[in-house]
């Protein structure tokens, strides 16, 4: 999902920065409040960040013959809400842009939007929707994490299609092309990420299946 350094036209790069900035700012305020008001949630917040840190470093093979990496942002989005993941995701993407030449500073705004905003918000929405519909915690965590991962890659494909529409088929044709590269490759990885997220959620809470486990993790209940 990383758009490489210098690969977005200047106008697009600036636009994605403008779109991402408010989410990151709100996330920073929210994160500060969580750290101040719920000290018992501190370690869980660190765990959510660490999970995303590991998963976004692991490049895995996919059935399309490409490699790609999961995002790991669903776990934190489910426990703490999507805003804090904007901050944690930005830290990860900065690390990768500066030390790994993966992604970039000019494309940071766009990459933050796909991995740290679109993915976590999709995860959170699916989590709420499925829990509201009466799905079990494990099922809701699985779909939230897997579809959030996919949403990140679909966003990347859309960003590139917007920047590089096909000469003949326009945005739609280009979206299919980039979607084939990013989103299709991602499907098996997203399923694996969903399964892993269920396991880590179990391990973190140690009380699988209890309705209040997530609010305990976020420090909202004890």
């Amino acid at each position, binding site marked *: 999902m990383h758009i490489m350094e210098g690969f977005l036209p200047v106008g697009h790069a600036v636009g994605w920065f403008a779109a991402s900035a408010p989410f990151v700012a709100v996330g920073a305020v929210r994160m500060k409040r969580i750290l101040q008001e719920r000290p018992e949630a501190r370690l869980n917040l660190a765990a959510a960040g660490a999970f995303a840190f590991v998963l976004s470093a692991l490049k895995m093979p996919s059935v399309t013959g490409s490699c790609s990496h999961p995002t790991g942002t669903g776990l934190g989005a489910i426990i703490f809400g999507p805003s804090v993941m904007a901050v944690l995701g930005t830290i990860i993407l900065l690390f990768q842009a500066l030390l790994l030449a993966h992604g970039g500073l000019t494309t940071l705004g766009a990459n933050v939007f796909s991995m740290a905003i679109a993915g976590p918000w999709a995860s959170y929405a699916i989590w709420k929707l499925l829990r509201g519909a009466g799905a079990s915690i494990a099922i809701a965590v699985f779909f939230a994490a897997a579809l959030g991962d996919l949403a990140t890659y679909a966003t990347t494909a859309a960003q590139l299609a917007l920047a590089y529409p*096909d000469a003949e088929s326009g945005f739609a044709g280009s979206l299919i092309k980039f979607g084939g590269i990013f989103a299709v490759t991602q499907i098996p990885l997203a399923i694996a990420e969903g399964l892993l997220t269920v396991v880590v959620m179990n391990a973190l809470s140690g009380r699988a299946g209890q309705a209040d486990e997530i609010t305990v993790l976020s420090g909202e209940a004890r």
Partner: protein
Amino acid sequence: MSTRSRNIWLLAAAAAIIAAPLLIPGLGGEFKGSDDRGTEAIAEARPGFEPWFKPLWKPPSDEVEAGLFALQAAIGAGFLGYILGRRASKKNVADR
């Protein structure tokens, strides 16, 4: 099914999904990064395209890059393991 055996099955399923493209003949290919393939697709669509900004620093070799990716994973896994271990030991004390 106990939580432990469910976790083992979930982990095994995740491992199988990741290993399948490597093991099943006919699947797979070069296994290049999808990020690089995206970059190539841009170069194909826009011949002569030059990125307008270069990374400030690039790992000097693939080995150094792989090492830094491993470092990223190690930092994350280290923290996560510490937190999970702490949680488990606390629970054990409470159970006694």
